[in-house]
């Protein structure tokens, strides 16, 4: 008489299968969230297109992000900076109309942050630009994006990989970034 393990497991077959289907569903749900509702490309208050500005019109990054080369933060352009051009350019576009609305109300535009590191990380744009990094190395092909999307993880292993590869002086010291 043969003893089958499969036979003994027979009563558990259905719950295990149910569990597997549930898990599969979980993964699908998680993927769907990332695919259709990701925070790497949030919907901004104005549908600003980097493609139009940086690619079609060839505006250099630091023309708008003026502080990048000299301060820790690159600086999102002021509303007055936007109006400097859009006083007369593309004034009919509904998105530019939104900009005019903010300007007339003297309100800042509440852009949603896409690229962010935690508060305990000391990150400075200045050093990275001094080291001749291209903006695209961290921010991806921004000039092709209609809606800004995070392409790199901005997590510590990613930082360290780059610091190691480029043999950054003190690039692996804790205190370089956590001070």
């Amino acid at each position, binding site marked *: 008489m043969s003893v089958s393990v499969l036979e003994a497991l027979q009563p558990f077959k*259905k719950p295990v*299968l*149910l*569990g597997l*289907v*549930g*898990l*599969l*569903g*979980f*993964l*699908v*749900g*998680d*993927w*769907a*969230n*990332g695919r259709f*509702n990701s*925070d790497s490309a*949030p919907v901004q208050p104005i549908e600003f297109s980097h493609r139009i500005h940086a690619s079609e019109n060839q505006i250099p990054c630091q023309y708008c992000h003026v*502080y990048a080369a*000299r*301060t*820790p*933060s690159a*600086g*999102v*352009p*002021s*509303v*007055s*900076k936007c109006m400097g051009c859009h006083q007369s350019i593309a004034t009919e576009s509904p998105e530019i109309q939104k900009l005019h609305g*903010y*300007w007339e109300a*003297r*309100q*800042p*535009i*509440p*852009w*949603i*942050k896409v690229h*962010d590191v935690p508060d305990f990380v000391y990150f*400075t744009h200045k050093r990275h630009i001094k080291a001749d990094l291209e903006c695209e190395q961290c921010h991806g092909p921004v000039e092709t994006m209609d809606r800004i999307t995070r392409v790199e993880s901005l997590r510590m292993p990613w930082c360290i990989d780059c610091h190691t590869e480029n043999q950054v002086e003190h690039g692996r010291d804790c205190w370089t970034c956590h001070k």
Partner: protein
Amino acid sequence: MANISRRDFLKFIGAGGIGAGAGYIYAESVKKTVEFLVPQVIPPEDWSPGVATWYNSLCGQCPAGCGISVRIREGRAKKIEGNPVHPVNQGRLCALGQSGLNALYNPDRIRTPLRLTGARGSGEYEPIDWDEAMTSLGGRLGSMKIQGAADRIHLLTGTVRGHLDLLLARFMEQLGAPTYLQYDYTHPHSLYAANRMVFGVDRLPYYDIRNSDLLLSFGADYLGMWISPVHHSLSYGHLRQGRPGHRGTCVQIEPRMSLSGASADRWIPAPPGTEGLLALAIAEALVDGGGYDGADRADWSAALRPFKASKLAPTIGVDAAVVAELTDAIRRAEHPLAIGGGPAAEGSHGTAAMTAVNVLNHLAGSLGRRGGVLFGADPVVADDWRVRQASYARMMEHAQIMGRGDVDVLLLHGTNPVFNLPQASGYTAALDKVGTIVALSSFMDDTTAMADLILPTNVYLESWGDDVPEPGVGLPLATLSQPVVTRIHDSRSAGDIVLGLAHQIGGELPAELPWTTMEEYIRHSWRQIYSVEAGGTDAGFDEFWKDALRSGVWARNRAEMEAAPTVSPAVLAQAGSAASEFDGAENDYPFVLQPMMTQGFVDGRGANLPWQQELPDPLTSVVFSTWVELNPTTAAELDLEEGDVVEVSSSAGTLAAPVFIYQAIRPDVVAIPIGQGHTRFGRFAEGRGTNPLDLVATVTDESSGALATAATRVTIRKTGERLSLIKTDGVSRDLGRQILGPAKEHA
């Protein structure tokens, strides 16, 4: 497997659906919260995001007058440090100064002008706009001036020095209102009175602790809250370690060991109120032993004869041998210095006690000498403010005038007499008789809550101003105060309010106070300082002004010191007995109460700052509350342990607070910190602890008019309740670790 039943099919659909939903929600829940990247509408030109700018200005947290450097990022104040080039604090700053940010960002700040709608003290106010507030107040003051009733307008402020003081004085003068008083609990009236009596000077001399090699402190907690603690701490460091191979000695004479006592080489707990006698006993021994060789030696000898240590020993509780040791130390020291303050100055004969200290300095040859008491350093700004400092006696005269209903409008700014004067004084009741109380205040404190009209003022970090610290560092010195941030509420500085009122009232006032803003006025005034220094011309003022704004302080490099004043033995007779008398019979009230100022709260003004609330007291480590300090022997006699709530009663009042057992306090003294127990002062101060000043009886020192806050006797009763003290220390015992030397049995 092909034949799945309908039932199972639905189960799989359900499992998959629930799984997918859970997966979606999970992914949503681990997302970072949305952060915004908010741009400027129009960017200011003088800053870049992420880059700090430091502005130098003036600390306004206590009257010491330290310079501060404030770190500003994106237009917000982030951190306050000491100004490294300021001669008073030389880059250092105390905890209270650092907490200035708590004042700036305090959620309880008054944000708009308020008008009382309910009964006085009810706290029912309606917000009004500035135009309405200024028009109604200006109109009222103006019509009183026209009717010749301006003498019924009174002004009461805290310590205000520099040009704001002169502006207020000018405003009141032009209004025809002669009463402008300053009330500040920390102002050492008896020390001033004694200096006037002995030296004939109004200005506080500079006590050169830094260069002294023997410091005898009669009750002055110079590292704690005496005059200019940060400067004294620096001096103390130099006295101890600044001269290689030469370590200065410190002796502290006080009934309860203060921070200075804990840092001294020798702590002498003389009975409360006898510190002056001890100073005289030392003086006697000094003259008697040939330590003084002035021409008037015989006169001094005769005048000091009653204070022979052997005769006084039972009264002053200090052996003649100890007096001889101290005398010997003075004779051997090159730069002995005696200072007086704290409980020694707060007795019923505080002025006489301070006179005794001054006499001791004279006989020890410490006057007008390096490492001693230095005179001179003429002020660069007129310093009439001292005349306006109201002692307790003067405040009581003022209370009488108010009580008679002779004050129609009382303008208040930066002072809290309802909290700082004892209940027994009846000041609050008198205040209630005033027609209209107008408070220029940043916070709803105990006194502001009595106001009919409240005009919100900027805190010092948002204000223009200047200050001449007293005694400063013995050099002509002025500190500039500039707004380090734009004001964050709809408030105005006191100076701007007064200038606005002057224009509102009209008549000759706008011509006499022609400035439209405090900034313009300060700049104009500094132009005058500059032209005096530059020999009558203001050429080059713009450069000077830029430099002053950058450094936050202006000082002359050197100053001619005045010669030491001559001191005659007659001052001893003039000052009278130096022994304190107490309110309450010793049988009924066996303990002497010592209300003490703390570094955290000063006289209570710091209680609404959360950082100060959570700052452990340096000697007891207690936070957030009021405690009653008792000697272990006393506690054992009364069967009390730490945390037992006791009722402390004097002839004037009663309070209840938990006991803290403190080894370094005399068994016949009870010390309670001042600062807590506010009825109104915002969410961080209200309903916390009790105010020991409500126990203080109305004994005054006649020579100075100061309230003798250390001259009340109290009794203690155990209530049976317990309230654990919140403190950061574990136990004060060494638990066999022998960290204080060989183990001894503790009481």
